[in-house]
């Protein structure tokens, strides 16, 4: 390198390159845009109707998640397997080893979003723009995040979904952006859907995207664990941006549009370079090239991390695991509201696979799947749980498992779900069991006939069955004042100390009854003998019964008027926990009269030591 600084050439020379539009940066922009458009299509098309109409679509919609190397590496650490389509991540991983962090600059849809927002709303120019792209020590933070998460993964807790960019962008779009767009535009994307807590997920997305105005590609540089992984793997790459010091005249134009803040004007930081080629476009002298195995003394090969911080990050990962697990939120102290989709693996297995991408939540046709907040413990944040106030689990639907990229929800057939055909021995998959809250149930506690739950129960034979029960109506105790063969005249019981019955008035034919409710009168004779007869009709004071009294009611006997109607019960041997009863129960509010809990879930049956199932009776069908 020569010692004398060169004379600075005028830098402001621009070229209108009409014939040379086919440059690598143009290609990159088109690729980024296309990737984002594909991502948007994938997410928009992840609906039950579309997946049914186009059966091959299920292989596409979660594809970006499947090619994400962090997802496959982290799930390999937690489950010691590479699940099905995750093998595709080699398609990204192997080129990264040779080219560097091209994924961040070319393919990542979240990166494209940041890039676009930064470019459209950035507003900085010239030197200030270049300064914004300087490397800062805080960019090392993403490596600590990656390390902590990988250490957690080694112990079996998968938390990369929180900050992995693909999981995050999928979750944000499925959980808040598309639902928000849905609302006015129902006919394009589908029905108005609800996502509990979606506001926070959307706000988080907004925050990260808005931060691009402060530091361009803030998320990518500071937080992204996938970027950190790629950055670490860049150390082996055969090609990188190389600055020819002889040609360079130190004009500092190259960082102006640098995406990765990798300092091409100094020693290139391999681990930060997004291979975006913007620096090459900005260099007036052509000093920058994408060189093959350039000298190692012009680069910073490894990420710039402090050893002490690395240790802290590893320890954090180490400690968070027992902190989370000893809260027992997933084992003995499990929440009965944590009801998982059909085909889910057992809970701890689930937590070691679920990347919180939200695909299952989006594809669910009834909108019953929701991102969990407290239902699944701290490890289960944003994992799918069922909320039967919003929807129910459709009987013949197994869509959620079809789109799950990691196998947290297995790909099952409808036959396996319902226990038909070759699965008849095992019986159906039970999500949980329905229970009645008889203090709220209308027939049980309010003398109002209602068996909506029995009507809608979809199993065959129905798991909810009814029995007829008799209940005394309010003010139903009367006294007999007169009677004939088939009628009895009543009055209110006498006041204290008196013998004469009080007058009473019934609305005409109030006790005629109908298809659902029958009315009965129970006569209790003074000697204790009782007789019950069905009431066919009445006028103001007299009841007309069906048939004849076996023994004529004497004046002074008590007559109690009762209603008989159906009250429902659950046959736990048949209930599969689909939640249609809870969904349709007319007693709305925080607690419905019939509600489903996670007890008896069949996915836990081979994991007895996890203590999530208390009773065999809830779990297995007898005989």
């Amino acid at each position: 390198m020569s010692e004398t600084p060169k004379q600075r050439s005028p830098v402001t020379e621009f070229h209108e390159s009409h014939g040379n539009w086919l440059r690598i940066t143009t290609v990159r922009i088109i690729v980024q845009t296309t990737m984002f458009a594909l991502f948007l299509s994938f997410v928009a098309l992840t609906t039950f109707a579309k997946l049914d109409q186009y059966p091959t679509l299920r292989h596409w919609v979660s594809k970006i998640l499947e090619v994400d190397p962090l997802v496959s590496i982290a799930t390999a650490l937690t489950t010691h397997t590479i699940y099905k389509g995750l093998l595709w991540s080699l398609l990204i991983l192997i080129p990264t080893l040779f080219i560097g962090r091209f994924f961040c600059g070319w393919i990542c849809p979240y990166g494209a979003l940041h890039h676009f927002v930064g470019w459209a709303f950035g507003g900085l120019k010239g030197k200030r723009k270049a300064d914004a792209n300087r490397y800062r020590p805080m960019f090392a933070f993403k490596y600590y995040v990656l390390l902590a998460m990988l250490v957690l993964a080694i112990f079996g807790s998968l938390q990369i979904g929180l900050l992995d960019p693909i999981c995050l962008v999928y979750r944000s779009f499925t959980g808040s952006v598309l639902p928000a767009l849905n609302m006015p535009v129902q006919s394009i994307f589908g029905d108005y859907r609800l996502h509990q807590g979606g506001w926070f997920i959307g706000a988080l997305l907004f925050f990260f995207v808005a931060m691009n105005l402060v530091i361009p590609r803030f998320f990518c540089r500071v937080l992204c664990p996938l970027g950190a992984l790629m950055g670490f793997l860049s150390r082996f790459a055969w090609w990188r941006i190389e600055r020819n010091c002889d040609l360079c005249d130190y004009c500092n134009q190259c960082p102006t549009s640098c995406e990765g803040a990798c300092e091409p004007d100094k020693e290139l930081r391999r681990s930060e370079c997004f291979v975006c080629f913007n620096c090459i476009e900005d260099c007036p002298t052509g000093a920058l090239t994408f060189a093959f195995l350039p000298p190692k003394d012009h680069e910073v090969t490894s990420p710039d991390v402090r050893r002490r911080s690395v240790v802290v990050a590893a320890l954090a990962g180490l400690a968070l695991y027992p902190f989370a697990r000893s809260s027992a939120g997933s084992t003995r102290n499990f929440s009965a509201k944590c009801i998982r989709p059909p085909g889910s693996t057992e809970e701890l297995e689930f937590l070691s696979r679920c990347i919180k991408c939200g695909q299952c939540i989006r594809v669910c046709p009834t909108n019953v799947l929701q991102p969990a907040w407290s239902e699944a413990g701290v490890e289960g944040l944003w994992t799918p749980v069922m909320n039967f106030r919003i929807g129910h689990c459709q009987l013949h639907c197994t869509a959620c498992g079809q789109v799950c990229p990691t196998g947290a929800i297995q790909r099952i057939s409808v036959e396996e779900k319902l226990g038909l055909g070759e699965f008849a021995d095992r019986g159906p998959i039970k999500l949980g069991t329905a229970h009645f809250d008889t203090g709220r149930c209308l027939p049980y506690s309010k003398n109002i006939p209602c068996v909506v739950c029995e009507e809608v129960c979809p199993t065959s034979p129905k798991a909810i069955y009814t029995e007829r029960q008799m209940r005394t109506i309010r003010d139903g105790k009367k006294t007999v004042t007169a009677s004939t063969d088939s009628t009895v005249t009543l009055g209110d019981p006498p006041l204290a100390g008196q013998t004469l019955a009080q007058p009473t008035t019934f609305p005409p034919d109030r006790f005629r009854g109908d298809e659902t409710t029958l009315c009965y009168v129970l006569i209790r004779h003074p000697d204790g003998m009782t007789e019950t007869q069905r009431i066919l009709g009445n006028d103001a004071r007299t009841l007309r019964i069906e048939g004849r009294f076996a023994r004529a009611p004497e004046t002074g006997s008590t007559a109690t008027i009762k209603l008989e109607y159906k009250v429902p019960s659950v046959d736990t041997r048949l209930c599969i926990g689909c939640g249609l009863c809870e969904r349709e129960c007319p007693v709305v509010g925080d607690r419905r009269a019939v509600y489903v809990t996670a007890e008896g879930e069949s996915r836990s049956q081979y994991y007895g030591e996890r203590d999530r199932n208390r009773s065999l009776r809830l779990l297995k069908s007898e005989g």
Partner: protein
Amino acid sequence: MPTLFARRYRRAYVGPLEKALGVLIFVALAALVAAFVGQFLTGPRPSAIAQGSMEPGEAAGVTAIAGKGSAADAETAGPNPFPDAGAADWKAPAQASHYTPDNLYMKIDGRADLYLQYHVVAMTFGTYAHASDPQRTIDVYWYDLGQPDNAQGIYRTEAPPDATAVPVGRQGYQGGGAVFFVKGSHYVQVLPTGPDESDGAAALTIAGKIAQLIQDAAGDEWAPKVLPAKGRVEGSIEFAASDVFDLDFLANVYTADYEHEGGRIKLFIHRAENDAAAAAVFEKYKEFFGEFGKIIWTDPDTSRCIVAGEASDVIDAVFVKGRYLGGVSAADDLETAKKAAREFYDAIAP
């Protein structure tokens, strides 16, 4: 070509290698996009929606998500009996789904119980699709009840009293655009999902065409001829296939209401295979009286075989004549029962 995104480049020279690489990347990208878009070019899979759809309005097409070897696949094997729609805009079902009594519930859930009570033999399901609007379909549920009695019985059970009759099959009505008819041993429901005015007419046409394919069994309505016409309440004939009056030995019984001396009575009639079978049911009825109540009267006129019994505070009069078993059900008092039973007995041709 103007610079993309109004960005001006400082680098003037773009080498051939870079251009070649660019072309290569474009080709790969185009291939990717083409592969993705290509799967939409063949159009949506209509048969999946047709087979899997449940109630109109529910999420359609479960079979695709169900994957291979799903229940619906098992049902598709079989001939497609559905005729052409007879209307330009409607396409006949490409495939028909066949259901047996064992798996009928998979299609119609709890309603299967009712059909099983009426001894359903098979059900065939298909969907007529509208040529241009995929939201409009006409579902056809074609039940084979095995016996004309059963088909009549279930038709009557489902028909509302004030239905608008239509001239399809032996009897039919249309409500809300949907057409229901019975012919021979078959009961067919034609259910459009679109607007009533236009699709109701199409449903009627389709129903007519299906009815043409069904044989009307000769003389399949014996009951209205045997039950006395005098005093019969209009539209009160009903058929119950099993557990009639909650008696497990009584099946395939027609009942009708009659005005009788100021009140109403219910007559019933059952036609057995032969005289012996009818006599056997009669014996069972007498046993039932003996066990749960008592026989309170036997017709002294031995040419008639009538008894009246009382059980659970209810008086029935029952007779057997040839292969017919009939009588009065749940009469108010013995005299009415006796008189009505005698009249009924006499009215039946030997």
